[in-house]
């Protein structure tokens, strides 16, 4: 990954956290002085390198892992904002990336009962919950949205 793409990635992640949502290619183009096409091509290279995930239909950002650009079943309150995690791992990852305490709101996929986990100093307050990962690590990126 060359320096230009690393810079583009840093701008994109920085904007995501500043805005509380995924930036558009136009917004990053204005910030960076690049053309929209340059930003979109750079995002595609970052997608191919698994540094972010684009929406396959629109080329907009779908995931700036661990952040999700679209609503999911994993809502996170951290750093005085609401975020969405792509999955349970990423929900915890949002607190990790922000270096912030937080609260994760989800529901049990089996019974639908609401689950709330508070993260304080990197530790969850409910040790009884379990994390299940269905897809083996070797196949995570075969279909990252499903994973």
């Amino acid at each position, binding site marked *: 990954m060359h320096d230009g793409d690393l*810079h583009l990635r840093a701008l994109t992640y920085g904007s995501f956290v500043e805005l509380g949502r995924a930036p558009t290619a136009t917004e990053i183009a204005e910030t960076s002085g690049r053309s929209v096409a340059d930003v979109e091509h750079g995002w595609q290279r970052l997608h191919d390198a698994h540094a972010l995930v684009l929406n396959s239909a629109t080329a907009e950002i779908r995931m700036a892992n661990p952040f999700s650009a679209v609503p999911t079943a994993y809502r996170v309150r951290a750093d005085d904002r609401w975020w969405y995690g792509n999955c349970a791992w990423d929900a915890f990852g949002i607190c990790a990336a922000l270096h912030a305490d937080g609260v994760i709101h989800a529901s*049990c996929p*089996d*019974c639908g009962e609401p689950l709330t986990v508070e993260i304080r100093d*990197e530790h969850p307050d409910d040790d*009884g919950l379990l*994390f299940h990962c269905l897809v083996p690590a070797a196949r995570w990126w075969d279909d990252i949205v499903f994973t």
Partner: protein
Amino acid sequence: MNLFRSEEHIENWLGGRKPGATIPVAKLSELAHAWWGDRLPPSWQPHTREQNQAILDRLGLTDEFWQLP
């Protein structure tokens, strides 16, 4: 990659599918902080496969399920 109330709820949800891997939520938090904690600084560099595998290994996630490609 989901959170569940208990093993029983995981089994119900799987409905006969082959299970993946289950870890306690405290281990998940450790994993998430090791995996994602460096993502926002502008100096971020992509993790190599070896770096990511080392995170999993350090947390005891060493069986075949957790082997990265």
